[in-house]
């Protein structure tokens, strides 16, 4: 049982997932433990095929694990019924994707409203409409897209589309924002903008964010980095390319920004089944913890 330091929002316990490609079974996740705390900005890194997107999908109930458990606010959600999971995706999780995934037939504003459309019956909608539109506008203002409300996705730039996607993910005040390579398809400037926006949402509004990325630069800006290697949380090369410096850890690049970490800052000690040496505590994530 992983020990937690703060209130956990989202937990994965020994999550396993195998994909069948024809007769060949590929075990993508081989027992992953992860605990995410409220207000945390966590990044998951790893090589292509390491299973980081799969982990994100399992956390967000887009997919179901073969074994293991996923808990959200003390509720086990991986075994929940289809209806409950639909509701969780609608209300408790916000997704953003590498390719934005906006609905091409709808304007930016309507895309942001889409989760509300889905949650609302045709009879209830007229009563909610005004509030909903106001909130969607406010969110689009917040992400800096207040001037392009009625544009179709095809009329927006990549960065703008991703902002619209973020606004859409936030419309229902989700518990956790799940971001799958949010800057993967953007140029450097636009990517940095998105990174800044996410950071700001996290610090200013306390939004919990789990971000899958292979951009270590970007991972470095987050509170905590988890590295997945071959379907496991990787601890051997200690942290996501973080170098061990005098018993502590710091992020690999940019000495000026390096965060010096102590062993005490290492999160989550586990001796779960995934460990090669049961009984030996394993560090599976390191990050700088906010002051308690």
């Amino acid at each position, binding site marked *: 049982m992983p020990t937690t330091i703060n209130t956990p929002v989202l937990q994965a316990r020994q999550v396993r997932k195998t994909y069948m490609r024809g007769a060949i079974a590929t075990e993508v996740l081989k027992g992953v433990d992860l605990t995410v705390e409220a207000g945390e900005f966590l990044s998951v890194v790893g090589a292509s095929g390491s299973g980081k997107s799969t982990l994100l*999908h399992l956390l*967000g109930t*887009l*997919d179901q694990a073969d074994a293991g458990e996923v808990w959200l606010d003390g509720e086990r959600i991986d075994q929940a019924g*289809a*209806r409950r999971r*639909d*509701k*969780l*995706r*609608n*209300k408790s999780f916000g*997704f953003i*994707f590498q390719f934005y*995934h*906006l*609905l*091409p*037939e*709808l304007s930016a504003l*309507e895309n942001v409203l*889409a*989760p509300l*459309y*889905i*949650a*609302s*019956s*045709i009879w209830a*909608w007229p009563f909610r409409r005004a509030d909903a539109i106001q909130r969607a506008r406010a969110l689009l203002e917040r992400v800096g897209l207040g001037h392009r409300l009625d544009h179709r996705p095809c009329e927006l730039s990549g960065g703008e589309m991703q902002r619209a996607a973020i606004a*859409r993910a936030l419309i229902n005040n989700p518990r956790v924002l799940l971001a799958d390579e949010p800057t993967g398809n953007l140029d450097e400037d636009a990517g940095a903008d998105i990174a800044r926006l996410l950071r700001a949402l996290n610090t200013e509004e306390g939004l919990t964010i789990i971000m899958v990325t292979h951009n270590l630069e970007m991972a470095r800006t987050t509170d905590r980095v988890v590295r997945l290697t071959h379907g496991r949380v990787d601890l051997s090369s200690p942290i996501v390319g973080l170098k061990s410096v005098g018993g502590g850890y710091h992020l690999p690049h940019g000495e000026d920004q390096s965060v010096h970490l102590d062993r005490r800052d290492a999160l989550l000690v586990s001796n779960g089944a995934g460990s090669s040496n049961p009984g030996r505590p394993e560090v599976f994530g390191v990050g700088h913890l906010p002051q308690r």
Partner: protein
Amino acid sequence: MYKLILCWRYLKTRYLAIVCVVSVMLGVATLIVVNSVMGGFSAKLRDRLHGLLSDVMLEAYDFDGFADPEGKMKRIKDDPLLAKEVVAMSPTLEIFAMLQFQFRDTPVTKTVRLVGVDPASRSAVGGFSEYLTDPERREKPNFQMDATAKERFDRQKRPEPLVFTPLGHPDDPPPPEAPKPTPRTTQGAILGYAIAHFRDRQARAEDGSTRDRRTLQPGDEVVLTTVSGAKLAPVYDRFAVVDYFKSEMSEYDSQFIFVPLEHLQKLRSMEGRVTSIQIRLRDYNKAPAVVARLKELFVQDSLDVQTWEEKQGAVLAAIRVEKGILNILLFLIIAVAGFGILAIFSMIVVEKTRDIGILKSLGASNMGVLQIFLTYGLLLGMIGAGIGTLMGLAITVNINEIEQFLARSTGQDIFPRDVYYFDRIPTEIQPMAIALVNLGSVGIAVLFSILPALRAAFLHPVRALRFE
């Protein structure tokens, strides 16, 4: 909520969907036009089949007929139920006969059905006087020749036989007076229009309609040969053509000849006997009850009681079967449209795979996605059916103009008027049939969208999102 919005947006942006709409539209329009025209033809045919026949008829089984029609009619009048329902009755005497006449010095022979009628009462029963070609006779049906017919008749009078007086001795007593020729008292006959005319396909009137050539003028003489009552011995007499009747039902117009009832009775030496009593009802819907009552009343007399529909049962059934089969075949058109919808919908689902994944990631349920595509099918079906109905009605209403235009521009006769006896394509718009066609086509549109919709509904969200 999103379902409707997305359906509507998909409808507006997918041009492929227009193909579905068009295919449903064409199917519905075709069905409506064909149904209306078929309905028109069959209504007209029914009308004509009814034509000469009265609502209900009381018939003898053999040519000898039955005696005392007046007594029987009195019994009908005395029956409380029948007295209320029967409006008019007329005794008639019907028999096969052979018609002979001269046309351009060639003898012509035709087999016909000879009907002896009492013009006044037969007209009251309906289906007789209104078909006569002479307007005056329509008002006051009779078998008298009018002035021109009489003149022609007299002109064609056969020369009186020459009286040959042999030269005898002056002392001989004078030869006996030759008998004075008796004035000809020929009876009138009303001929079916097609008996006395033929359609000349070569000779066209200026307006394009075919012209009929007349072979027998009013006043011409014809010979009718038939058989006598009980003994079935051949009998014949001369009749003068006085008028024609044109019911536009070729079976009747080419076979029936009406002559005065009493004369036919005398000719066939069956005075006071007739073969049937024609009955007109106040309300035809009551016919079954009337038939049952009549059967009860004349159970002793071995008489056959039939409505006109029963008498023409085979033909009416054939029309019904024809219409039913045609409808089934035409519905296959809509089924074809259904397969079009299936194919196009499957394409749209593939095209929209990513969107389906997005919707699911935003919390749309499988059911919701299913409903999007079912609603989409419903919408396409309804729009197609709606436009198709309007189109079908427009074509039906203007079918004669369209036919003329097509005939003019292609030089092909689409509706040959000499085959039928009417000049316009008859149509009958049946609201019930239109409602059924609409319902059926919308149903098929939804039915065929079920498969793609199910496919969409059960797409795995992650795989859908990753779909390239």
